[in-house]
């Protein structure tokens, strides 16, 4: 049955990607395609008092300059602008009115025959502002923080328990604003089909979300707008919500009744969403033996003035560490910036980073090995709801990761390990994420030649959805994977939510199983209908699809080929569509876990940091594809290294402007920064979570990595850096 699931299967879309055959949103064309270039605001807050496009319009090849005062209608009602993952608040509306809400806000779209012409003419648009007072500095505005809904109910009296604790560790950890910087630029090609119909190729993680949003914003009927996003060159959360370029491209197409492409520049992408700067305040109270009596975690994060974006930064300790008293709080400071958005492991990447640094500090204070402390506090239940886990092999992650890393050879004293001029540090941390699953529908069309097309509106954002869908379908239909073709990311295909939260693997796989089961039943019915069928006396449940045959289970050898069964009934195709809804089960908590081990080597005098080894041991149920899964975890580790050492969006608060809005100055790791990364998948059978035991891998790879590195830096140097990223100047005396 499982020829493909669980095996290291190469990407079925790999060839298309490496040969350039895969087309991305900004690569689709159409007759008469024209190009839009965005003009951005250069102040953080105020009003446009004059916007003069006269000179831009004089440039040969310029067709139109759209502004708030000169554009086709946009929806007035706030509800129209709320997409399926919009946070509380009033969503931003590009070119809606004269108000400036953030630096980099799009305020005009210059449309021209050529992109270069539009880009040049954009420099000729003259704008006068009336600037208002503004604030963009989280730390300066910390006092204004207002409490959001509590992530988890408090248990006991954390404040009193902290005050009474034999040992207390309490500190602020600061995670800066970070931007996703996916390789593919944000792009939309809106194709004017005539008759008011539009085909929109958009870089997005959810074509149906964008489709519904555009219909609402432009007052279109569902059949008038089709959205496709067949390939996505990375998104990491930045494409969950419809981005402004899709509104602008579509607005321009409607204005000009022509096909329009809008591609943002790398610099302009810094005007989109980001991981919000967050001050994470963690307090732990413990007994001398390492028993935790109190955990308190408060996050203070940036949001915009118009939406309250918050994620679960705090409360992860409820999943990880036993404590009789706990308190969690999430506060927001609204600033004159655009709204943050999800970014790989939103909430956890920042919050668990702080928690796991704090646990390391506590272990040092208690003179306990960091793993020993975590095992001492190990929680077999999600304490917030008092639930057991569907599965939790975190102990195995510690054991197998530690063994692979050689943790037992660690000298616990800081600055005790060195090689020549370099201090050597070994650190570890725990990772945790949710195992979510969502309703997804899949359609399978089986043809009499034994080929099947599997289709679904879900996106593959580079994670490997095409491939796992094909693997599950091939196994379920008993066909070789070469006989399976997969169509994704077209809003006319069966329903899927945005691809995010690590839920798409389990959700799409079970939808495939559901549709394949419908196909199987039909085939059994057909096979039994053949006169003298060897399956005639078998119960339908005793018949499986295997090796292209409809076959009785066991050794009976009774079988009918798929082509024979279909042709006997003169069927050339069987089409089945099925929406999979997971049965609600609130009896168990569902999480993935990891243990991350990092080695750093730091030049003692110069502070230069090298991350020479990372071992990530992951417990995430059954791994559908160990090849793409391993890549995904490695990517998470690389990003975690960046989060620890490099990534930081820097703003000058006098101007409210991002000053490193490009990937020359916004640093992410380069090849030289990456050495050995060892990914271990810990065996974690889970027959409760879902039929295949799948949990999802999208986020877990990054969680814990920054803390493991920060803890290794402490072990190497004796210096505890709580403001990320850990740049070398912070290590110099």
């Amino acid at each position, binding site marked *: 049955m499982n020829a493909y699931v669980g095996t290291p299967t190469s990407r079925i879309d790999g060839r298309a990607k490496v040969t350039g055959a895969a087309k991305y949103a900004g690569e689709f064309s159409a007759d008469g395609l024209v190009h839009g270039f965005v003009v951005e605001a250069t102040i953080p807050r105020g009003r446009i008092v004059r916007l003069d496009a006269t000179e831009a319009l004089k440039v040969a090849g310029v067709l139109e300059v759209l502004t708030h005062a000169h554009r086709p209608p946009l929806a007035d009602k706030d509800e129209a602008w709320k997409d399926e993952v919009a946070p509380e608040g009033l969503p931003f509306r590009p070119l809606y009115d004269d108000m400036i809400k953030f630096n980099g806000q799009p305020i005009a779209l210059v449309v021209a025959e050529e992109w270069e012409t539009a880009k*040049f003419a954009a420099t000729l648009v003259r704008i006068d502002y009336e600037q208002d007072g503004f604030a963009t500095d989280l730390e300066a505005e910390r006092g204004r923080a207002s409490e959001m809904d509590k992530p988890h109910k408090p248990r006991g009296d954390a404040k009193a328990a902290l005050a009474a604790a034999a040992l207390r560790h309490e500190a602020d950890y600061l995670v800066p604003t970070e931007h996703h910087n996916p390789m593919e630029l944000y792009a939309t090609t809106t194709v004017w089909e005539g008759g008011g119909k539009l085909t929109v190729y958009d870089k997005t993680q959810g074509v149906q979300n964008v489709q519904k949003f555009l219909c609402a914003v432009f007052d279109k009927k569902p059949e008038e707008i089709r959205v496709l996003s067949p390939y996505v060159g990375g998104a990491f959360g930045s494409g969950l919500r419809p981005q402004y370029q899709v509104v602008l491209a579509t607005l321009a197409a409607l204005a000009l009744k022509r096909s329009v492409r809008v591609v943002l520049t790398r610099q302009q992408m810094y005007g989109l969403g980001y991981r919000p700067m967050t001050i994470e305040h963690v307090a732990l109270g413990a007994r001398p033996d390492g028993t935790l009596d109190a955990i308190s975690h408060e996050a203070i994060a940036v949001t915009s003035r118009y939406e309250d974006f918050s994620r679960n930064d705090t409360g992860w300790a409820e999943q990880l560490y036993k404590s009789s008293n706990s308190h969690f709080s999430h506060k927001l400071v609204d600033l004159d910036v655009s709204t943050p958005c999800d970014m790989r492991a939103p909430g956890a990447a920042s919050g668990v980073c702080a928690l796991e640094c704090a646990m390391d500090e506590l272990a040092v204070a208690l003179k306990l090995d960091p793993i020993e402390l975590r095992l001492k506090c190990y929680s077999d239940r999600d304490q917030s709801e008092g639930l057991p886990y569907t599965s939790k092999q975190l102990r195995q992650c510690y054991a197998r990761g530690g063994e692979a890393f050689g943790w037992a050879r660690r000298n616990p004293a800081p600055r005790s390990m060195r090689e020549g001029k370099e201090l050597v540090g070994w650190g570890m941390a725990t990772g945790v994420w949710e195992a979510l699953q969502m309703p997804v529908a899949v359609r399978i069309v089986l043809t009499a030649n034994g080929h099947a097309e599997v289709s679904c509106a879900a996106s593959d954002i580079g994670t490997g959805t095409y491939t796992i869908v094909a693997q599950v379908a091939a196994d379920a239909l008993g066909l070789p994977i070469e006989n399976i073709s997969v169509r994704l990311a077209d809003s006319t295909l069966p329903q899927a939510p945005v691809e995010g939260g690590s839920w798409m693997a389990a959700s799409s796989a079970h939808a495939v199983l559901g549709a394949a089961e419908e196909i199987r039943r039909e085939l059994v019915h057909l096979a039994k209908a053949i006169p003298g069928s060897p399956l005639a006396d078998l119960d339908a449940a005793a018949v499986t699809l295997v090796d292209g045959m409809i076959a009785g289970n066991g050794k009976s050898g009774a079988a009918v080929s798929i082509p024979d069964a279909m042709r006997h009934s003169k069927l050339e195709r069987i089409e089945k569509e099925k929406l999979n809804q997971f049965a609600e089960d609130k009896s168990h908590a569902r999480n993935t876990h990891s243990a991350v081990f990092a080695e750093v080597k730091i030049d003692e005098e110069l502070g230069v940091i090298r991350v020479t080894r990372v071992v990530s041991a992951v417990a995430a149920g059954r791994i559908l594809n160990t090849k793409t899964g391993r890549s995904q975890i490695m990517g998470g580790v690389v990003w975690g290294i960046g989060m620890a050492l490099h990534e930081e969006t820097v703003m000058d608060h006098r101007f409210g402007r991002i*000053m490193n809005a490009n990937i*020359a100055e916004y*640093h992410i790791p380069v090849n030289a920064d990456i050495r050995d990364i060892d990914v271990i998948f810990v065996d974690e059978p889970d027959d409760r979570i879902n039929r295949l035991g799948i949990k999802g891998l999208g986020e877990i790879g990054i969680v814990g990595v920054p803390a493991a590195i920060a803890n290794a830096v402490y072990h190497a140097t004796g210096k505890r850096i709580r403001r990320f990223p850990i740049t070398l100047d912070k290590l110099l005396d």
Partner: protein
Amino acid sequence: MNNFQYSRAGDVADAIRLLAADPGAKLIAGGTNLIDLMKENVERPSRLIDISRLPLRDIEETADGGLRIGALVPNSDLAYHPLINQRYPLLASAILAGASAQLRNMASVGGNLMQRTRCPYFYDTATPCNKRRPGTGCSALDGLNRNHAILGTSKSCIATNPSDMSVALAALGALVHIAGPMGARSVALTDFHRLPDDKPNLDTILGRSEIITAIELPPHSFPRNYSYLKIRDRLSYAFALVSVAAAIELEGNAISEARLALGGVAHKPWRSMEAEAALRGQAATPDHFGHAADLLLQGATPRAHNGFKIALARRAVVRALIQAASATPQSQAHKKIA
């Protein structure tokens, strides 16, 4: 990006004529910096004069035993040239410490000397910057200045020169050959780049209608005891926080000749004759290296965020001199610091 005219220069004299005829014109060779700046609307040339086909690509030995390097030699070709590798490995090492392989393949030697600062305010046309728009003020002075200059700054500008190659050329005592309407001239590389004083818009002494034709390396080449040590925020593909070009000659353990230049700390590669003189005749010991570093860093003035550079530069100078003295120069391929 603005609209611009394009001309191709037939020869050096033609390039000079074209420059003189159009006050807004700029020369373009590899374009690795100029095109970026044009995309950001920082540079808005009325005309690009393409000099990439001029015959300035030779590397030839001079009568006195030095080398003359044509201004259009690509950075990569220079770094991998046998004569450079054998005789001026400090220069090869510095070039390979900079940018990426792709950029080095495109970038010319002359263009490298002309690359402009990476100060974020210089790049952002929405903020004041005296270098980009004289008289508007310096945003870095009291703004984000973690990677700004500590030496030779002025009230008008605290930008740094981002070149690695120039730091090695400064240490090696290179000459810059220039052609212009008034004929040819040559200046020491250390005099080619300016300090900002009250005219930070001028990076170099190059006249508006002049063109760099060649770099000349003197015979003194320091093939054995040298090191280029670059400290940056990630292990490759980042501009220097501090870099050191160190070259010495030893007689036994005594220093007979010494060169030191710093990158990432000033508006130009930073050399101090006093620091080098202090090394001559001394034993090659960390104490003497530290004393030289102190002399080199004399007058260093930090701003709010770049104070760490003073200590970092001192340590990097000492380390680079130790590497040079022990003939174990910093490898640019292996990121562990020797």
